[in-house]
């Protein structure tokens, strides 16, 4: 295990921010901590980096207990949402900073530092930008420089705190894929904090969903989507129809798992409220007699068979129903 988080708790001003959190991150993995704001994901990341001290529990990096270590001694790379580049230093100086401040005995020679900076500039595709100041770069370029700066010291783990949160959608999508490729090349164990489920699903090989200071589910993105462990995960990740309460919890079904028919015996009566047919999939919003609204996704062929329009009556049933509890319990 590259990072082990054991029984971590933190309270601040009477509020529980982390509540007995356990997490194991394998060497070379790319894990996303996904959750709404206030769920404790950033605090968990900061505790791993040593920027916050937990009240209880411990963090092990490569088996080494590091809870008592200062951030300076942990050798973790940290990338901040707002880049945190040093504005008075050039791109080169920023990237070289971690090497420049090493104690004299461990500091590489000037030539080695220069070569390492060249290599990183090539990696982030900013070869000719070395002498610019951070203020002269775009947001996406700045964040790439911040990544290069963190990678320069060859950290044991790379921690990214909402790294693309301050960027616009298109740049965000590009950087996401770039990060994934970078990880495939560098193989540095990476933890990414995000509130954007698409980002988590696309980039990470493991997603840990956090809610109210706890981790509710850890798993492969596909498993999280197909088999959510709790009602919260079901609602938070992807679209979900909340059907009805049952004794064991709440019944849920994904929009693509809903089945429509014109036969009154094949489901509950409902009416099409809105219909968006674009590409191979059509998105429908239905309203049942009870007033409850349902999201449905249909293939265009089926839509053509049913000949639905806005206002059409239709009969709906859930093909696969999952019963989930509100609270996570073991």
């Amino acid at each position, binding site marked *: 295990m590259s990072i082990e988080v054991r029984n971590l708790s933190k309270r601040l001003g009477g509020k529980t921010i982390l509540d007995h959190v356990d997490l194991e991150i394998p060497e070379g993995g790319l894990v996303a901590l996904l959750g709404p704001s206030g769920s404790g994901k950033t605090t968990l990341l900061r505790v791993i*980096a*040593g*920027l916050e001290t937990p009240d209880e529990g411990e963090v092990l990096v490569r088996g080494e207990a590091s809870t008592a270590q*200062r*951030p*300076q*001694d*942990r*050798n*973790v*790379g*940290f990338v*901040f949402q*707002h880049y*945190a*580049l*040093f*504005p*008075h*230093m*050039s791109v080169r100086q920023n990237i070289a*900073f*971690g090497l420049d*401040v*090493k104690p004299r005995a461990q500091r590489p020679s000037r030539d080695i530092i220069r070569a390492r900076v060249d290599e990183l500039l090539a990696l982030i595709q900013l070869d000719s930008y070395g002498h610019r*100041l951070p203020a002269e770069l775009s947001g996406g370029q700045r964040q790439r420089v*911040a990544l290069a*700066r*963190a990678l*320069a*010291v060859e950290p044991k783990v790379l921690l990214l705190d909402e790294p693309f949160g301050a960027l616009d959608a298109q740049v965000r999508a590009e950087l996401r894929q770039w990060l994934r490729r970078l990880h495939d090349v560098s193989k540095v164990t990476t933890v990414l904090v995000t509130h954007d489920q698409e980002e988590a699903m696309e980039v990470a090989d493991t997603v840990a969903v956090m809610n109210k200071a706890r981790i509710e589910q850890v798993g492969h993105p596909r498993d999280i989507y197909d088999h959510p462990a709790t009602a919260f995960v079901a609602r938070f990740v992807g679209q979900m129809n909340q059907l009805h309460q049952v004794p064991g919890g709440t019944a849920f079904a994904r929009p693509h798992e809903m089945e429509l028919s014109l036969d009154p015996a094949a489901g509950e009566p409902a009416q099409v409220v809105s219909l968006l047919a674009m590409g191979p999939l059509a998105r429908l919003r239905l309203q049942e007699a009870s007033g409850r609204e349902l999201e449905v996704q249909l293939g265009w062929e089926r839509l053509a068979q049913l000949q639905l329009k806005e206002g059409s009556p239709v009969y709906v049933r859930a093909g696969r129903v999952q019963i989930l509890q509100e609270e996570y319990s073991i």
Partner: protein
Amino acid sequence: MSFTRRPGFGLSLGVTLLGTSLMVLLPLAGLALKAAHAKPGTFAAVLSSPRIQTACLFSLGAALAAALFNLVWGTLIAWVLVRYPFPGRRLADALVDLPFALPTAVAGLTLASLYGPKGWLGHLLPFPLVYNRLGVVLALSFVSLPFMVRSIQPVLEELPRDMEEAAACLGASRWATLRRVVLPQLLPAILSGFALSFARAVGEYGSVVFISGNLPFKTEIAPLLIVVKLEQYDYDGAVALAVIMLGVSLLVLTSIHFLNRLGSRRHV
């Protein structure tokens, strides 16, 4: 040089220039005019007087010393006020402005009685702190301290904390972070606080006359000599001395400004 005229430019520039002229430029021009009409030889006489030379050098030296003292002390105060939440911080923050509000003569008297040989603190001190040059520096530091604190405080408040956290994660010690990340960004504010402190201290009169003892060749400051000359109806001498002090202060302030520009350009 070409520039586009923005709406309201003429009126606002006119009003600003009028105000500045009435309050600043006109009195300074009057001073220069008066100096130009002084008896020939006045400047030479003033410049060659050993008593005036000593006073001018002491005024500049004491103002520099006070500004340097504030550089360290004021930066520390600003740091503590911004970075540490403690009970009574707002009160402490308000107290920093007190030297602005207090009549400087009151400040001088208070310092003189507090640190005087029989004062509450003065009798505990192993060395005298009033009626000597150290006392003058003390008074000048007191009256110019708020300039330093108030110059640095807003910049420090705006300085993002994550920059220091980034430096720590990269392995930089607290000291290296301070020296290589924080101080370079505070430098323009520190320099401008230093310049303001210095300017304030050079012109200070009220508090110094009560604490210095006004001993010729020892603790006399240039503004005091100007008053002395005025009392002797030597207006030309007073004006000449004023112009000399003005010139030297202008030179020092311009060099600090230039240094600042040089420092910020180096990074581009």
